[in-house]
């Protein structure tokens, strides 16, 4: 077991606290089968991969991947970047990753930055090699509005209860079937991922993972060099009476 990064500095009134879903992602990304997959996908001689986590929140997953790049990718020349819609989470992620990296200097990759943005909209097309997404997956009646610039300013002033709960709802509320945000991200993957790109996405049972996976398999190929989109369930947890609560799917393409 690789150590879990410390997030004790994070204010959980404004940023999602690491939970079972976060830990399932840590276990998945450091599992023997996924490290073997990633090391085959990004061999030593290939250019440095860019890992982008969408919605890192506290930063625990991105910090884990950055601090243990040597173990996960068998190379330390790996870049990592976080994009969160919650500006408070961006600052939290930066601190969590920097702290974890400093305590794993012989093993750590290269953290670039945390930027405040909406999914992959600010990422240059085709640059993401490993995308990680622990989405707001809880079914909800409506979706919270995205913070805009003037609220970004307001976020500097320590907070009103209403603003805090708005920020937290961004990390949990997923609309219909808990899939509205995830569906937007899935629709962006084709553009965001590089030719060798792979995405790890966490889903809960109410998201209907089997249907999501069937949809991915039916995606049109991007160009003639792409053979097909693949998707596989690579981890699950919380089995109860044959029902699993959470799972992680891996999406990649064959060429």
């Amino acid at each position, binding site marked *: 077991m690789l150590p879990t990064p410390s997030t004790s500095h994070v204010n959980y009134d404004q940023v999602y606290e690491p939970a079972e879903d976060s830990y399932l992602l840590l276990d998945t990304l450091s599992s023997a089968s996924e490290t073997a997959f990633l090391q085959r996908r990004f061999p030593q001689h*290939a*250019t*440095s991969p*860019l890992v982008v986590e969408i919605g890192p929140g506290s930063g625990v997953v991105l910090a884990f991947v950055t601090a243990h790049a040597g173990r996960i990718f068998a*190379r*330390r*020349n*790996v*870049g990592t*970047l976080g994009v969160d*819609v919650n*500006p408070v989470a*961006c*600052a939290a992620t*930066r601190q969590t990753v920097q702290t974890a990296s400093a305590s794993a*200097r012989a093993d750590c*990759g*290269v953290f*670039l*930055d*945390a*930027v*405040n*943005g*909406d999914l992959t*909209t*600010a*990422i*240059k*097309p085709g*640059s993401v090699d490993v995308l990680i997404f622990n989405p707001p997956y809880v079914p909800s009646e409506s979706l919270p*509005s*995205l*913070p*805009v*610039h003037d609220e*970004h300013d307001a976020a500097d002033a320590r907070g009103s209860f209403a603003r805090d709960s708005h920020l937290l709802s961004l990390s949990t509320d997923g609309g219909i079937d808990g899939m509205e945000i995830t569906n937007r991200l899935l629709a962006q993957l084709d*553009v965001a991922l590089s030719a060798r790109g792979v995405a790890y996405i966490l889903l809960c049972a109410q998201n209907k993972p089997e249907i999501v996976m069937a949809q991915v398999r039916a995606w049109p190929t991007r160009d003639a060099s792409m053979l097909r989109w693949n998707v596989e369930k690579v981890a699950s947890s919380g089995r109860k009476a044959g029902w699993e609560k959470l799972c992680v799917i891996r999406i990649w393409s064959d060429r």
Partner: protein
Amino acid sequence: MKLLTLNFLTCARKTCKATAASFPLHCREVELEQVEMDPNPLFIKNMLPRLDWKAMKGLTQELGLPQLPNEAPSEEELQGADGEPTQVLNDLHTLLMETSVVSGKLVCGNCEYEYPVKDGIASFLLPSHMV
């Protein structure tokens, strides 16, 4: 925000994505700082082929930083005969990894929208009518 990060960012507006002018974003009224970072020579070497050299050269011009050569350095220029990192590689580390935008604006060359940077964090959230 590290200068290297700008190699991976564009204007967040859908209509700009297809235009060449939306990359790289242009730095305006920025405050820079140098933040020391552990060197990772292999990272610079293996990231170099992914750099948009022309874009990076343009950025250094805009920021009034030491000029980059017209062409990206070759692999041989990054590593000395003794296997040690060369000055060229060390300079790239200083530029890409240690030179950071603390505050200012990142401006799209196509739509001229200004994305603010505060405390080293760039914000790409758009008002809903602009998405």
